[in-house]
């Protein structure tokens, strides 16, 4: 206010300091800001026929949300105590409680960080979640292509475009003196061949999601196996007992049907035969050039005993990080909303923390002139708390129940 | 000088009304009378509002001119009159609040049914459309089939049109939501019967567009992700402009297409022609190319 403190308040208006009135008005605008987000979330939720609600799929951790609610509530309480202490002129106490608030704010962000990390680890990120099987397959195709291109660029020097370089991979491998590099180039050649076959089937649209999944798994196990008898077999190599069938839930009948379907198209590669434990299994691919010049690939499962194997060179290790992602219809929208709302809330937490830094920096010099500051930043902090009070049930508990 | 300004402010509304009166003569008016019954109702509504607003316009401008003239007279050097010390009139406020309120409420309520007929799905002229499909076009129909006659998909920067095809016996099939192998396709050329209301599915393949038939007074945005039914009825046969009315990118102005309203027989013949072209087995290549050139 403009007048000297000695004068009576001559201005018209509310019995509030300007700063507090301004803060309340500002909070009004903030309410509208979050209304836009929360309203968007609610209407998009109802407007989407299948919002992902299974916390196992979305990697929402209710304990994290609940703990964070508690943390924020406690920090809100500490701010109030700090404000009371300021009013009671107990500045030491006020400082201590502000510091406690600050600590809890850090704790909040830490827990939030753990949650975010879970999402990043499982690629629950906006724009990265396939929502139909086709998208899932296309996405993995893109990732494989990215891997092939990147590796090619790394291994084959020069300014040529990648597709030219790819043609030169085998030549390079023949020319190079460095055995290490030769092996890398050979590996690349094998992976590229597998990838090209995969891609051809994707563009021909003959690949179902689970088949694609098997393909990728085979690719992960791609290896060059040298046998004791001197033979060298290249293919998907499964050294242990056959991994448990990922699609056990589908029942025999369906599996049979698929089998039949594949046999029709002349591909028997996808379903591993049942073999005893401790047996090695490798899928051998032979390509023959037919009369009309087209390359025909046939696949055959080879069963080996451990004693047959002399040396195994794992080729697929390089692409083991590439998986087909879970199909989550409306997962991108979920991820977008989640990160938007929690992200902007986190930004507000940071702003609130910044507000508390100033009185904290005063240390023992904290005095009555900071009372308004503490009160107003306290109001702001309570608002941050309020937002979270609504975000917690809306994001963590309600979905799937309405 | 003040008289000049008084005349200045009085003159321009007169000029404005004069321009509006002569404009239709120069073709600066509607692109022809509305060519659809709904369009005629829209035009009627337009003229009704035009009359109300013109009367209000004339009234307020006369009022403004009057107060300016009397004000100017009061400032003459020989009239040393003070301004009228008045803070307003309660009666006048009530009158000029309540009277416009009734007029506005009337306008608001009067037009509701036109809007409802145009957009509310239950009020679409289903029976007439059904009649056209089963009797006019001899389409074999189940009860569950929808009544769309074409699907219009907007894309940058053209209109793609999908019609239902014919079965083996040469009967017109209903249009399915999903594309069928029998479907017929065309671009920027929408043919529809003129004898009864017809309905299309409006879709967008990329961004938002707007399906605008100026002569029929039809406009509906094609919203990405939505399938919007649009119905209209051309009262007479002929060609009508079809344009895009929602900014859709740099080529927005280029989305020029036409609607051809024709008789049922001509429409069927057009579809048969499309069918012949599309399922031409390619034996006589030269001939088919000529066809396309036409």
């Amino acid at each position: 206010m403009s007048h000297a403190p000695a004068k009576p308040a001559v201005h018209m208006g509310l019995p509030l300091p300007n700063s507090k009135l301004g803060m309340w008005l500002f909070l009004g605008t903030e309410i509208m800001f979050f209304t836009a987000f929360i309203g968007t979330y609610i209407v998009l939720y109802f407007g989407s026929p299948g919002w992902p609600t299974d916390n196992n799929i979305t990697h929402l951790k209710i304990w994290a949300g609940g703990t964070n609610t508690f943390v924020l509530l406690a920090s809100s309480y500490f701010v109030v105590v700090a404000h009371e202490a300021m009013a009671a002129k107990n500045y030491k106490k006020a400082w201590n409680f502000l510091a406690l608030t600050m600590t809890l704010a850090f704790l909040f962000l830490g827990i939030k960080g753990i949650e975010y990390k879970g999402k990043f680890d499982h690629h629950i990120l906006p724009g990265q979640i396939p929502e139909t099987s086709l998208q899932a397959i296309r996405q993995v195709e893109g990732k494989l292509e990215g891997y092939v291109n990147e590796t090619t660029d790394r291994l084959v020097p020069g300014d040529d475009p990648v597709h030219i370089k790819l043609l030169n991979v085998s030549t390079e491998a023949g020319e190079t003196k460095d055995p290490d590099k030769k092996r890398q180039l050979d590996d690349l050649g094998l992976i590229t061949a597998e990838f090209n076959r995969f891609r051809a089937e994707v563009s021909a649209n003959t690949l179902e999601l689970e088949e694609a999944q098997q393909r990728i798994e085979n690719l992960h196990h791609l290896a060059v196996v040298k046998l004791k008898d001197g033979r060298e077999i290249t293919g998907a190599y499964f050294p242990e007992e056959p991994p448990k069938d990922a699609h056990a839930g589908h029942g025999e009948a369906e599996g049979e049907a698929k089998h039949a379907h594949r046999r029709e198209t002349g591909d028997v590669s996808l379903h591993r035969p049942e073999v005893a434990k401790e047996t090695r299994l490798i899928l051998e691919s032979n390509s023959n050039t037919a009369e009309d010049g087209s390359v025909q690939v046939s696949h055959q499962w080879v069963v080996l005993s451990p004693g047959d194997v002399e040396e195994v060179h794992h080729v697929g290790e390089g692409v083991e990080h590439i998986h087909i992602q879970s199909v989550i219809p409306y997962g991108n929208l979920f991820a977008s909303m989640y990160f938007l709302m929690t992200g902007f809330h986190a930004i507000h937490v940071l702003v609130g923390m910044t507000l508390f830094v100033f009185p904290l920096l005063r240390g023992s010099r904290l005095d009555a002139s900071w009372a308004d500051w503490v009160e107003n930043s306290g109001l702001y902090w309570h608002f941050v708390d309020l937002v979270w009070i609504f975000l917690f049930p809306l994001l963590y508990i309600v979905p799937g129940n309405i | 000088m003040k008289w000049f300004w008084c005349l200045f402010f009085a003159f321009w509304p007169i000029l404005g009304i004069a321009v509006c009166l002569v404009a239709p003569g120069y073709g600066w008016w509607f692109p022809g009378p509305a060519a659809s019954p709904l369009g005629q109702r829209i035009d009627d509504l337009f003229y009704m509002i035009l009359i109300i607003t013109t009367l209000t316009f004339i009234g307020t401008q006369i009022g403004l001119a009057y107060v300016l003239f009397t004000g100017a007279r009061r400032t003459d050097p020989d009239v040393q009159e003070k301004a009228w010390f008045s803070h307003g009139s309660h009666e006048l406020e009530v009158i000029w609040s309540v009277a416009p309120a009734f007029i506005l409420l009337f306008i608001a309520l009067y037009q509701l049914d036109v809007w409802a007929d145009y957009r509310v799905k239950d009020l679409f002229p289903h029976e007439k459309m059904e009649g056209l499909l089963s009797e006019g076009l001899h389409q074999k129909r189940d009860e569950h089939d929808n009544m769309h006659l074409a699907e219009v998909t907007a894309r940058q920067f053209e209109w793609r049109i999908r019609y239902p095809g014919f079965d083996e016996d040469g009967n017109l099939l209903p249009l399915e939501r999903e594309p069928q192998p029998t479907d017929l396709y065309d671009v920027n050329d929408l043919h529809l019967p003129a004898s009864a209301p017809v309905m299309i599915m409006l879709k967008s393949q990329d961004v938002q567009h707007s399906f605008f038939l100026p002569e029929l007074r039809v406009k509906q945005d094609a919203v990405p992700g939505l399938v919007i039914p649009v119905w209209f009825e051309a009262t007479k046969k002929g060609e009508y402009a079809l344009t895009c009315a929602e900014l859709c990118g740099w080529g927005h102005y280029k989305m020029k297409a036409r609607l051809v309203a024709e008789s049922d027989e001509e429409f069927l013949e057009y579809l048969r022609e499309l069918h012949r072209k599309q399922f031409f087995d390619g034996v006589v290549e030269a001939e088919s190319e000529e066809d396309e050139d036409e």
Partner: protein
Amino acid sequence: MSEISHDTGSHAHDDTHHYVNYFLIFIALCICTGISVLFDVFKGGIPKSALVFGVMAVAVAKALFVMTYFMHLKFEGAWKFIILAPTAILAVGLMIALAPDMAMHYYTNDAPQVKWVGGEHAEEVAETEHSEHSEHQHEHGGH
């Protein structure tokens, strides 16, 4: 904000309000949080609508606690209604106005995943999702 002149005003104001046991409020808030978590734990046993209603009611109760006591609204003048009422009306009104267009589709919603969710794949999706997920876990565990 830190002008000294404000102090007289705000302190005078502070002195007028009553003593509040903030710790009790804090405990009440914690209990509320516990209740909403319990709602989630006993998901199966409660009707869904009751669960949503309950959880949101708890949230509103918590919000009211924070606003009335922590934000001192209980002790403020009538201006609080003037600032908060329009905000509340607008906030709720915006959502209500959005609902007919966004939440209920008057026109057909046309998107690939609609077919995937609502159509032939509906059951399959649920299953594959689950199995993919477990496989996912497995793979990650394996490394």
